[in-house]
């Protein structure tokens, strides 16, 4: 069950749009900075397969300029 954190950098002038898009994804916790053009995203998915699919969804968001992974943890699956 991977948990990963990213820094999402929006396209110029699209920070609010990006916050909206990220917030719409159930697997994402979104924490925007108040004074910089960067958003912390924490993802929590069932398994590697779901993680890959989510990553694809994130990369496909138009308002995203760069998605940089900061940390990744893989926890044991809940039985």
């Amino acid at each position, binding site marked *: 069950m991977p*948990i990963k954190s990213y820094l999402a950098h929006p396209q110029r002038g699209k920070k609010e749009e990006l916050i909206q898009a990220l917030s719409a994804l159930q697997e994402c916790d979104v924490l925007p*900075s108040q*004074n910089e053009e*960067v958003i*912390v995203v924490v993802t929590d998915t069932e398994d590697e397969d779901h993680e890959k699919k989510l990553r694809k969804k994130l990369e496909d968001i138009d308002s995203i300029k760069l998605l940089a992974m*900061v940390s990744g943890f893989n926890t044991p699956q809940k039985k």
Partner: protein
Amino acid sequence: MFTSLSNRRDFIKKMAKLSAITAAATMFPGILFAEEQEQGLPKGANLDWKKAPCRFCGVGCGVLVGVENGKAVAVKGDPKSSVNKGLCCVKGYHSVMAMYGEDRLTKPLVKKNGTYVETSMEEALDLIASKMKETIKDHGKDAVSIYGSGQWTIPDGYVASKLFKGCIGTNNVEANARLCMASAVTGFLTSFGLDEPMGCYEDIDHADVFVLWGNNMAEMHPVLFSRLLDQRLKRGVKIIDFATRTTRTSMAADKSILFLPQTDLAVANAICYEIIKNGWVNETFVQKHCNFSKGLTNMGYGLEDKYKFSDKPEAVSFEDFKKFLNDYTPEKVEKISGVSAKDIKYMAAYYGDPNKKVMSLWCMGPNQHSRGTWMNNLIYNIHLLTGKISTPGNSPFSLTGQPSACGTVREVGTLTHKLPHGVVMKKEHREFAAKIWDVPVENIDPKPTYHTVEMFRALDRGDIRFMWIQVTNPMVTMPKLKRYRDGAKKEGRFIVVSDIYPTPTTDIADVILPSAMWVEREGMYGNSERRTQYFEQMVEPPGEAMSDTWQLVEVAKRMGYEKQFYYTEETHIEEIYTEYRRHHDNKKHNMAPLEVLKEHSGMQWPYVDGKPTKWRFNAKYDPACSNGEEFHFYGKPDGKAIIWQRPYEPAAESPDSEYPFWLNTGRVVEHWHTGSMTRRIPVLHRAMPHGYVELNPGDAKRMQIRTGDNVKLTTRRGEIVLPASVNERGVPAPMQVFVPFFDENMLINDITLDSFCPISKEPDYKKCAVKVEKA
């Protein structure tokens, strides 16, 4: 483990979020994440934010403490602090909660007929002073002792040293930093003649490669590790984790290399061999700035009482050193260490590449090592041979684990042989200290007495009768603990413990004094990069709790030392710090004045002409350099650093047919050391409520052990049962197990070995032989 998975997942998500915030803060200094930082604050709160260094580890993050109605209610990272640039780790964010545990000690307790009875602070201090005088009268001055810690503030340690060494005249002053960084001190002293790193955290912004020597930075120094990860995002730096166990650091590193316990000695020598063989030596640097030496070998391991060892350094030539290294070719070392010759050459190539700046980082791995001084020397050897030292990004950097291990233990000198400036063995150093302390020079004994392990042995034997323990928990941390616990409980011993919560150490006390914690009093800490940081008193301590400094001052006055302890209660911290600065009034160690510390988020020493010194021994940055050369290792009489010839020698105890596994001990990110504070913070306690034993998955499968099963560990000292952890956070190598030491209900140190480095006297908590069975 017993942690519920939902709690664990929440915790991990929080860690992931904090890592990302940390990375963002290094990219955008001053960045704000108000939602996260103000989470949990009282609604409509009107907080007064005041700066302080964090209470926990040696990184020394700057924090802002939010105070409302006399209570500290929130913490956020200080964006003005160059250490953490506004970030905190999970312990830092929750640090104020450690002040408000339900069982906080608020009244002095005196043991009467086997029961603790509340008393007044006046009465308790009177009793302590009279017991000390009585003990000195009956058994001599060396029968009284004080044992403090790297959590002592600078004034705490200073008055302890002044009272015991200067006034009473005993060198029975030790601190728990002996258990965590004494090998770093002796490593610095033997290689450079002066303690503490030449570089600073800013090296992280310049280095191209980071080699972590037995250092799980992701868990132990998470804010600094986030700075490494951020540099990887920005500049593509490489992180190499060189360790005995796979950890979160290994998983985050670009390369993880595992070695067999104790064989880091051989691998370090093999790296030197490769550097020389491939012509990567910076010959001009070595010729101008280095000497070569060797010391005694087969020193033993300090297992017997009253063990003594003095090294006998002997000059050798570069040619002798090269011959010595012929025993350490990568191919030969591969057989000892389990590290492939290819991986040894891989590490050596980075150190040898003149176009790569390399930072080595280490903490407990090389320090808690039966050849800890040698390991520190060997890492310096690599940097000295290549000239990669004392310049931005080229930095051998020894990290510390406590907020003032450097500031109080190493700089104030709260170890048996030390004085604030210099050592007790040197007449001129004793004279200098005696003058400032206003005591006859004859008061200061020229002979060191007991290092920490031997001090507790002396307590057991009865050579020490009185011990005052402040702000540390030795009845959890001492190796081969049972002997020392039983010794402390013997008839005729009198133990005083100053702390903020009940612990296994208060259990052995005759008097328990409630202490004021962190921002409940005024003080200073000194972090790993020579940064001294001031904090003001922000809230009142509970009940009769009193700062450790003032407890000592009150007892000193009661013992008749009013002249030396002239301080007034309102201004004593300023008076003590001003007096302390006089010991370091020189270009090599000058401390910043108090008004400067109050204004800034700490200041690095040497502080000369109104400026901190970021890189010592480099004439471009360090005004103490005076030899007219680019570098000046002025801690040594001839201004040269020493490259030491230090061999590989086995550990004190290795696995055998009866005890076939290695036992390694250490820490976890949720808890700070013995957990006496962090286990009272609900979110941290829930995330990691119990100790456990990590097994290699292959071993666990063979022994039919699954996570949560009880496992019995047996060593020659005793046995303990712990729940198993398989393939969870850390993964030990085959035939090795790992146990964290934070859980006072599962005292792993009951079965560890009290072997130590003969030079530093620091115990080796990382290696002993153990039998592992499913319970």
